[in-house]
């Protein structure tokens, strides 16, 4: 019972925060409120037992994204340009359609805690559950699969992200040199 109450309260706080962000016109508080938003969603993820997702959400959403936003404000401006009402309506339409598509897509997902999903029926599941402890020795099975069994995949992802970061640094660095 208590978990349902917590879920409802956290979700309504998320909605209130999102509405508040949408109403703000100065971008500096918006950057901080997005940090609050991701702290709230991280709490929700912990409530749903997805602790690793929650950790990523808090580190990226509340930590890195806030710092990145602030760095962007230092390079550009922290004020939102005024938008024509016609374009605001268009944006509202696009957001509503995207949200409707996402809600429609979520209807296909298995219910929370359902037992007849591919996660539970896949033939590799038994092997990971039985042997990951002996082969890898990481208590958390998700971490064992992510960091060991599909380690090459993760290495590739890290390479892609590193290259993207390198590109951004080179672009910004060139701009800084020209200013001097």
């Amino acid at each position, binding site marked *: 019972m208590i978990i349902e109450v917590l879920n409802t309260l956290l979700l309504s706080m998320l909605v209130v925060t999102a509405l508040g962000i949408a109403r703000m016109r100065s971008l500096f508080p918006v950057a901080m409120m997005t940090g609050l938003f991701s702290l709230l969603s991280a709490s929700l993820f912990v409530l749903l037992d997805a*602790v690793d997702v929650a950790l990523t959400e808090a580190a990226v959403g509340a930590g890195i994204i806030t710092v990145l936003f602030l760095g962007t404000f230092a390079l550009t401006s922290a004020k939102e340009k005024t938008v024509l009402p016609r374009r605001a309506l268009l944006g509202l339409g696009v957001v509503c359609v995207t949200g409707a598509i996402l809600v429609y897509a979520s209807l296909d997902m298995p219910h929370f805690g359902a037992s007849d999903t591919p996660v539970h029926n896949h033939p590799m599941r038994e092997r990971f559950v039985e042997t990951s402890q002996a082969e890898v020795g990481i208590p958390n099975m998700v971490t064992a699969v992510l960091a060991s069994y599909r380690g090459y995949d993760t290495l590739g992802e890290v390479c892609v992200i590193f290259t993207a970061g390198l590109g951004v640094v080179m672009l910004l660095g060139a701009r800084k040199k020209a200013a001097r």
Partner: protein
Amino acid sequence: MFAVAMFAVLVTMLLLLVRALVGPSVYDRILAINIFGTKTVLFIAVLGFLSGRPEFLDIALVYALINFIGTVAVLKFMEYGDLGWESASDREGDV
């Protein structure tokens, strides 16, 4: 008992959310969001004991560290107008 503690944490979260949304000055918002991060740490800790699995306490500790980094970045931005790299201002960097 843990349910009462959870209730108290949630009430504080609501009050802080109101302050962060209404907060007339930027500093109200900074303080509200900083304390909200602390409330998240408490939330995870109390939730761990409420559900009988306090193993996730170290995650709460990581949250406390992340929260600190975010607050320092925000305050540096308030003070210098940037994140303190040297080419952006004539002032010496502080690190």
